[in-house]
């Protein structure tokens, strides 16, 4: 029973981690919260759903779902972040939120607010290991997200693109003076982060075989907790905090009275703010900097 819960927790945690990586990358380069992130997460399964409805082959539809979400992210940057004057303190916050709400309203008006059945795309067999049952989709998405996380950590740590992003996160002005093409890097970050959110959305949709216009709401505020516990702008931290919160949430749901799993997340979040504002690994953006 405990092992089963642990696996479920890791499954949920890997979704959290994928959402958190994109979120924290965008925060790192712009120092603004992208509140539309969770709505882009929701949009990918609906794009795939619509394409399958239009009799596109399922695998292609999955791929186009991720690409569609990625381009939606680019559009988000061009509409809701780029034109906002930098001195507008709340600009990115409310503009990205508005963009997200527009996405949600479009989905509700075309598909209704009731959950829809998501077609079974991959017919993978279930695995039985002792008393732990793993569905094929679960193993598949666990493998994909694990390899993506490792790939991203390598990308951020060791490639030129990763160094550029970290330089922008530290000091945008200095980075641009030293020859980093800031606008291109920021666009690429939005593309990547939204593709990751879309992928996470598709994983959730395939796992539960049900999609709804409000499926992102649950992840929207928890993603905030993940990027703060991990340290703002710190990709390793986002992976670790995502997995940690996923496991904790499932464990609390299984063994504690109802309500405690959410309360734990919020208390943990406030605690991190008060005790260690730079996040668990201590390399995120410090909140006390002026």
């Amino acid at each position, binding site marked *: 029973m405990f092992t089963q819960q642990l696996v479920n927790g890791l499954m949920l945690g890997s979704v959290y981690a994928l959402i958190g990586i994109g979120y924290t990358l965008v925060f790192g380069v712009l120092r603004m919260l992208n509140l539309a992130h969770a709505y882009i997460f929701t949009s990918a399964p609906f794009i795939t759903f619509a394409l399958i409805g239009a009799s596109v082959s399922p695998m292609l539809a999955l791929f186009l779902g991720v690409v569609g979400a990625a381009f939606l992210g680019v559009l988000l940057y061009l509409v809701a972040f780029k034109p906002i004057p930098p001195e507008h303190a709340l600009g990115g916050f*409310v503009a990205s939120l508005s963009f997200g*709400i527009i996405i949600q*309203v479009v989905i509700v*008006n075309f598909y209704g607010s009731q959950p829809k059945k998501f077609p079974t795309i991959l017919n993978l067999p279930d695995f039985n290991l002792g008393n732990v049952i793993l569905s094929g989709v679960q193993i598949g998405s666990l493998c994909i997200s694990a390899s993506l996380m490792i790939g991203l950590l390598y990308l951020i740590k060791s490639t030129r693109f990763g160094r550029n992003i970290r330089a922008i996160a530290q000091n945008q002005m200095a980075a641009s003076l030293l020859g980093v093409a800031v606008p291109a890097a920021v666009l690429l970050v939005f593309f990547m982060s939204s593709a990751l959110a879309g992928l996470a959305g598709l994983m959730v949709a395939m796992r539960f075989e049900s999609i709804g216009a409000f499926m992102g709401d649950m992840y929207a*505020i928890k993603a905030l907790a993940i990027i703060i516990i991990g340290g703002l702008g710190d990709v390793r931290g986002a992976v670790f905090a995502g997995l940690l919160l996923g496991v904790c949430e499932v464990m609390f749901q299984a063994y504690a009275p109802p*309500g405690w799993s959410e*309360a734990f997340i919020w208390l943990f979040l406030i605690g991190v*703010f008060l005790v260690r504002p730079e996040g668990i690994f201590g390399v995120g953006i410090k909140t006390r900097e002026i």
Partner: protein
Amino acid sequence: MDILLSEPVQALVAINVLLTLSLLFPFAAGVWSLGLPGFMAVGAYLSTWLTMQMGWQVGPAIAVAGLAGAASTIPFALLTLRIRDIYLAIATLAAAELIVLFFSHFKPTGAVMGMTGMPYLEVHWLLILATGCVVASSLLYNSRFGKVLVAAGSDPMVAACHGLNMPTFQFASLAIGGLLAGMAGACFAHYYSFISPGNFGFHRTTDILMFLVVGGLTPLGAVLGAMILTTIPQVITSLEKWAPAMYGCIVLLMAVFRPAGLLPKNQLVKIFVTKKSDKNKSRRHLVSKDA
């Protein structure tokens, strides 16, 4: 236009105006507290308890609910000592979620099912309360205290260097916000006679934040933003399904083309200043000549 004079719309406008004002004071002082749904929930549940269990009248219950809302800002105020800006927004959001989470698992208040059967409050009382709060807020905002808040909001360092004790004013701005939110929550409970934790979710904060951003960081701006954005979907009922998307477009356009909101400057001050400046005209003339 009939729809604008109907009672539900008036009540909605009155409550939204109160909530927008409650967000205005902390934001004007640069304290980005998103704890509004928490304060609102405290006010609503306390006023319900006072009227239903203790047999109080609605009026005193609303007043006490406001005070309780102000008192519930104390933990949030302690957070402002350590955290600021967007980080404070996230921390207060989490704290507000905790308050609402408490009510959604607290059996005596009906948990997630909510409570019903509060004494009904006539709409005209809501309107009187909202008008009173608007007048009081404008006076407060134009007073020395209000100017200190704006100074703290625009540059806390400079304000502190002029001998203003920043934490005191930040606490006070939060407390005023809590007072207004608590009263708004109580009004909500007594007008709709039904409350549940679902009424105090994150969407409440985001709606009110949009009103404030569209209106601008002044009392009149807040009132204008709340009134316009609350009534638009009521007037254009054929577009009801698209109303939130319309909000979104309006906010996006405003953020790009008029980032400071509809009424960014204090219009009351402007009227007074232009009247006074007639006297100073000759002097200003001299100054420009020297330059």
